[in-house]
């Protein structure tokens, strides 16, 4: 956790009213930037991360020493080209990479806030990150982009701030968390709560850690990020370093071993309470409900140009749910493009090397940056 002191952050001094009714102030938002903000300040892109992401979207994550979560899409010469664009990515509030969250130390007690942290929403996350525009004195972003929970933040951002982004690209997301989405999140939360080391969220004080619960949560979630076909092709019924079944509950199959590994590395980089809070925020997300059941009304004042992207094998946020966003935007005559990208990599497609996706995204940004600039001249 000491390393976290070195991450960049701003302290938000002005009070922010949360959806739960509480007010927070003097809280940190940690962030990272890529590329250079030009003089006109017209080349800024705000990237929103997904459930278990953080501000380290590209390059080496200094805390985990792993590649940033969007290294395929973001960087020099990549789709989101940092030679051209200035990219800001912030850790969401509720997260555990330096932003205000349940692992933040309460100055009064000297201990982590834990479950005394207020329940937050996607709206709260977006409102907190908006402060970064003021910090960098950016009047209007060129684009807001995000996949999965990042896409939900894109939708909320353009709804809250209709004239603050030229381009909005929600990827593999939904405007309203479905019963199935909530069910999977609840499964993850219950795995954490069932771990006796969770200690009502006060595990650090008790010098324990609900690693097993958090690992199971990650394993269950990880299955939802992949497609059946992808899993079958990669693992099938292949055995893990053995010639035959062992008639035990060891990891006989490669898929078991893979999931166990995914669970075990996850607990080293993620906080269990953050997992509870962020999944809750996703479950509470229902943009149309915020506008009395009329999703179009969420975008009624928008000046942004939209590009909605989904993936054929994504069954977590399937094409039909992404299309709902397109339909709502078309109903009010907004400028919206849409494509479903062919991929068997499931929901995770947006994080992976999917050339059709990366090429289209890159070309779209490049062409539209030129057009937006021409209009200004």
């Amino acid at each position, binding site marked *: 956790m000491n390393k976290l002191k070195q991450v960049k952050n701003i302290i938000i001094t002005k009070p922010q009213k949360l959806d739960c009714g509480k007010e927070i102030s003097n809280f940190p938002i940690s962030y990272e930037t890529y590329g250079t903000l030009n003089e006109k300040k017209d080349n800024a892109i705000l990237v929103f991360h997904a459930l278990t992401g953080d501000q380290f979207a590209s390059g080496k994550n200094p805390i985990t020493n792993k590649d940033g979560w969007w290294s395929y899409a973001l960087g020099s010469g990549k789709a989101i080209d940092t030679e051209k664009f200035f990219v800001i990515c912030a850790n969401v509030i509720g997260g555990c990479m330096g932003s205000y969250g349940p692992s933040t130390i309460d100055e009064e007690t000297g201990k982590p806030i834990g479950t005394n942290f207020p329940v937050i929403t996607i709206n709260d996350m977006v409102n907190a990150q908006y402060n970064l525009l003021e910090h960098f004195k950016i009047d209007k972003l060129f684009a807001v982009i995000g996949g999965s929970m990042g896409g939900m933040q894109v939708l909320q951002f353009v709804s809250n701030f209709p004239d603050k982004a030229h381009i909005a690209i929600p990827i593999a997301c939904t405007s309203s968390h479905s019963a199935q989405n909530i069910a999977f999140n609840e499964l993850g939360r219950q795995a954490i709560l069932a771990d006796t080391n969770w200690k009502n969220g006060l595990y650090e004080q008790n010098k324990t850690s609900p690693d097993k619960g958090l690992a199971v949560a990650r394993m269950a979630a990880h299955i939802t990020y992949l497609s059946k076909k992808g899993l079958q092709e990669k693992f099938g019924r292949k055995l893990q370093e053995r010639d035959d079944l062992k008639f035990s509950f060891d990891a006989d199959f490669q898929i078991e071993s893979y999931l166990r590994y995914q669970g075990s590395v996850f607990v080293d980089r993620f906080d269990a309470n953050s997992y509870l809070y962020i999944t809750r925020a996703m479950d509470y997300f229902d943009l149309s409900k915020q506008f009395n059941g009329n999703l179009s009304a969420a975008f009624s004042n928008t000046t942004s*140009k939209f*590009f909605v992207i989904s993936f054929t094998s994504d069954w977590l946020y399937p094409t039909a749910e992404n299309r709902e966003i*397109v*339909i709502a935007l*078309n*109903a009010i*005559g907004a*400028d*919206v*493009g*849409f*494509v*479903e*990208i*062919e991929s068997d990599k499931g929901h995770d497609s947006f994080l992976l090397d999917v050339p*059709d996706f990366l*090429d*289209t995204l890159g*070309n*779209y940004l490049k*062409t*539209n940056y*030129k*057009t937006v600039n021409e209009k200004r001249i």
Partner: protein
Amino acid sequence: MKKEFKVISELILQNSKVLDVGCGDGELMKFLKDNKTSKIRGLEISKNRVQNCLSKGLTVIEGNAENDLQQFPNNSFDFVILSQTLQAFLDPEKVISELLRVGKKAIVTIPNFGYWKVRLNLLIKGTMPVTENLPNEWYNTPNLHMCTLRDFFNFCSKREIKIFKSLALKNDKTLNLSAKNLAWRNLESQLGIFLIEK
């Protein structure tokens, strides 16, 4: 650019709102965007073509005219274009009524099955016609509902659709087309271009 697209673009008013249904690689959209109006959208069924269009900065939605036109409100466009695809739909009648609901006017172009070479093909050879404009065999053609210029005239009058303007293309030459010269035009032209209104 195809002669057909030039004729279509001449029918479109400056700065009007346009939807190109089945926009392909966006050739017509790009031309209209550069010369007529920035308020142009496309609908296209092929993923690759949608990706090409989006890469060029054109606003295109992946979708099928038979199902996906319903998301657009009534009269949300000044012109809706349907170029040489009416014959490929399962339910062309429904598509036409959707075009006229979504658009104040529609521009529909039709490969003419009454063209003399087509007629001759069937008459002399006794096989389903294969021509430059209709290159497929009967077993692999996407064209389910071929019609002639006269058929489309009859259809419009039966459904009380107003034909605002009609033109015929004969070897890339634009000819006027009306009820008076229909018999002859229906024989000599490869393509009909209709500006219609409910």
